[in-house]
């Protein structure tokens, strides 16, 4: 007899607007307070303390335009936020400061979240959608120098890039970029040469979100239709469809694979969060708490497995925190 799905551990209220992005920072070396960053539609980035479960700080750097991506650069003191004001801001949050150190003007008017990859100590690569319609730019941070510009060939008709993922097989090897586009295809780019390695049409509708497991060379993408598409990368760097999984209701906003690669979570337009096993796509749980579209899901990076949490932000202004499958 299966157990009923668990309730949230706790719910964070107080953003005052739809929550579009979440990012945990709990794996800090010092016994620091575990922190959750959230970006909302009112332009604020809220810094939540997971101990007091209250907002510690509210960062206002995007002129009240919606913030749709937050990432940390190696610790909770360096924050990156991307907003609809076409800017990416780099924040310095050490010692209680809340100032914008630097910003990049992307001129991108879409919703494509940028992707970060640490290539060396103190150096990151950031992939972001740029001004031109189908273009993706890769910059090196913090120097903000352009590494390459990835432009599909003329007539490819991929549409806007919808979601990006920078990855490398292991530290030191070539970084590669997976990009999901408006026409439903996922493209693997080689950054050094700036050309397409492989392209796969995964969906009939725009790819809303994707995530990739570099160890197993398997990735997953979700779109506005009722199908999740799982694809793999073979030795020749070719993408192939591995499996598809049908959903009860259409529409996925976000997909995240847990860092231990055991489970992944999807955020659905039907207000539900679904948990699946990563190995075999086994449906594990349907978490039904929110009353509006769930916009983002994120797993925490706690060192201790039993403390791991899952956070989901929704259009109903709430962030639900769940503790699920923490035993393994």
């Amino acid at each position, binding site marked *: 007899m299966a157990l009923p799905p668990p309730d949230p551990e706790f719910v964070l209220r107080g953003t005052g607007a739809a929550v579009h992005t979440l990012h945990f920072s709990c794996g800090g070396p010092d016994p620091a307070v575990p922190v959750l960053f959230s970006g909302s539609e009112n332009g604020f980035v809220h810094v939540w303390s997971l101990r007091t479960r209250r907002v510690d700080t509210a960062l206002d750097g995007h002129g009240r335009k919606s913030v749709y991506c937050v990432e940390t650069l190696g610790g909770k003191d360096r924050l990156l936020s991307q907003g609809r004001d076409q800017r990416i801001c780099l924040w310095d949050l050490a010692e209680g400061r809340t100032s914008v150190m630097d910003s990049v003007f992307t001129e991108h008017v879409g919703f494509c979240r940028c992707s970060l990859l640490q290539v060396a100590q103190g150096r990151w690569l950031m992939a972001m959608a740029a001004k031109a319609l189908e273009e993706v730019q890769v910059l090196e941070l913090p120097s903000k120098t352009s590494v390459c510009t990835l432009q599909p060939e003329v007539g490819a008709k991929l549409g806007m890039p919808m979601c990006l993922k920078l990855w490398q097989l292991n530290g030191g090897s070539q970084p590669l970029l997976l990009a999901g586009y408006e026409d439903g295809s996922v493209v693997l780019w080689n950054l050094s040469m700036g050309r397409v390695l492989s392209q796969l049409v995964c969906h009939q509708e725009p790819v809303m979100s994707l995530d990739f497991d570099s160890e197993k060379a398997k990735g997953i993408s979700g779109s506005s239709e009722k199908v999740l598409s799982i694809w793999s990368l073979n030795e020749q760097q070719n993408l192939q469809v591995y499996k598809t999984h049908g959903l*009860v209701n259409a529409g996925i906003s976000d997909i995240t694979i847990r860092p231990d690669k055991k489970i992944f979570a999807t955020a659905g337009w039907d207000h539900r969060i679904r948990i699946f096993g990563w190995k075999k796509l086994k449906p594990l749980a349907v978490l039904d708490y929110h009353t509006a579209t769930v916009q983002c899901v994120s797993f925490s990076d706690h060192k201790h497995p039993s403390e791991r949490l899952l956070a989901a932000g929704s259009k109903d202004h709430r962030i639900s925190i769940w503790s699920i499958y923490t035993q*393994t």
Partner: protein
Amino acid sequence: VCFIPGGLDCSISFVSHVLGKVCVHGRQKEILSVLVPRLTDLSKSDCIWQRICWRLVECVPDRWMEAVVLGFVQSSCGADVLSRMLGNLVVKNKKAQFVVTQKVLLLQYGHSTAVLQNLLGYLSLDSLRRALLIKVLQELLETWGSSSAVKHSPPEQQQYISKAILICLSHLKEPEIESCRQELLTGMMEGVKCHLDSNLPQIRRLGMIVAESISSKINTDGPVLKFQYEEDEEARELKSLLVQTPLNCVVPSLPDDENEKADASLPLVVESNKKSHTAAPVMPDEELNAELDSDDDLIPYDMSEDKELKTKAPVYIRDCIEVLTGSEDVEKWEATVKAIENLVRKNPAATREVSVELAKVLLHLEEKTCIEDFVELRQRAQVAVLTTDPIPVAKYLTSQFYSLNYSLRQRMDILDVLVLAAQELSCPKSHGKTKHSGAQKSCIQLLPRSDSSKDWRRIVDERIKSKTRRFATGQSQVELASGPNEFNSVAGYFFFPLIQHFDRPLTTFDLLGEDHFVLGRLVHTLAVLMYLAVNTVGVAAMGKALLEFVWTLRFHTDSYVRQGLLSCISSLLFSVPRERLLEDMMEELLETQSWLGDVVEKDPDGDCRRLALQNLLLMENLKKKLKTVPS
């Protein structure tokens, strides 16, 4: 008959005379049942016997020719047999030609399909006779296409002519079709128009089938005419006539019509329902994955609550009205349409506040998205509103029936809704449940398909049954929960407005003119309302008004309308109590009786005659009852 050696001249005119006389006296069956099989056998291979046969029939005097020819046509078991026996009689003999091409096909209609097959097959087997075949086809087509024939001839005759046309078509070859293509086309176009105009569904379907067949024959390459109609036994049988198979003639012992099914039927095309397999999401076999599965540690939670997300319908009637009139949210609109009937029934007080407005919204509701059973849902909702607040809504609906700028479909919807609501109101309710508990023996179908002539007939039949058996059943029926007849107070509001303005034509709606189909439906509606008004206070007044209405329309040319008028009389005779019939309507009833007698004898439509006969029987019963009741 003995063997006649070749070379001897022989006169068999005496035999012909005998044959003719016997046939004319009506003994065709007996003599031909012996003669025909022998001749069939003998003439199968022997030319001399064939010629003897031919001489035999040729020598029959003209005055007996018809009987003989008919006899042969009926008793041969195949067109080739007939051909062997009659030879080119039709070409040589004028009387035989008349019988075969005119009398049997156009003036009579009692013969079976096999006879038609024989006859027309016979005409097609010889090149001399084929000219006659084409002529026959043209004449048949002319009759089929004439609008007065469609209106005034009985349905059985029309079916007979249609069958003949189809068989002719099946015999025609390409070059012949080429030569008369234009006439076929014009004939078909005219005929289809008259047939589709008719109110009887059977006639319409005949027209459709014949038109489709003609079209498929003349346009072998281009697009063909295709109609949508109900496929049942009759339709399939008609269509099977289009294709000819070589008939093997089995010499029957009794050349009767019962053998037709064995000879003439072809394998019926059974339409197979293809089940469409909905593609299930691809889930490849998980056993094939050889990896060690550490996922097994993860126990899934209960996911039974995970269902499709449904939009909720509004809970208040006024919200429903808002959604139905203006909402852009199609999912909500759909949910509202599905939920509105229940809401209306559960909230009678709230419905009464906005009943007329809701009725108006529902009457004008168009299908925005593709919902299953949209028409039924709308109709049920309208019935619910009407039964919840009968008087104002009935006033509104009856006034709209005679207003400008409504489609015929909407006007007929109004009639259907009135009937269904009347039925519901006059039926005793048990514990607020509105399902009919079988107190009514007749049921009116919810779907507004227009096979209503059958329904009304069924109602009248069942009522007659109920009347005549009442002595036997007595009190053995279970006593049903009784309640006040809610139709009593509102029957007048349903009935009289409908009857008031029927003779006043509007620019878009003329009951007495083109829109006789709606007139037919109106008459049937009035019949049912009359029937349901039994035991109400106003039934006598309704009866009198109805009788006058029937009297003015009694000579209407449309048979559907006449059937309706006769059902009105039946309902009247049942519902109005005897004493009131006597006191108020005696003269009118006597006049009606003489009209009914006329109908029984002279009306071309079989159903009308039957209904009129039933009415006369009812009147007789009435008279008898009056005599037996001690005054």
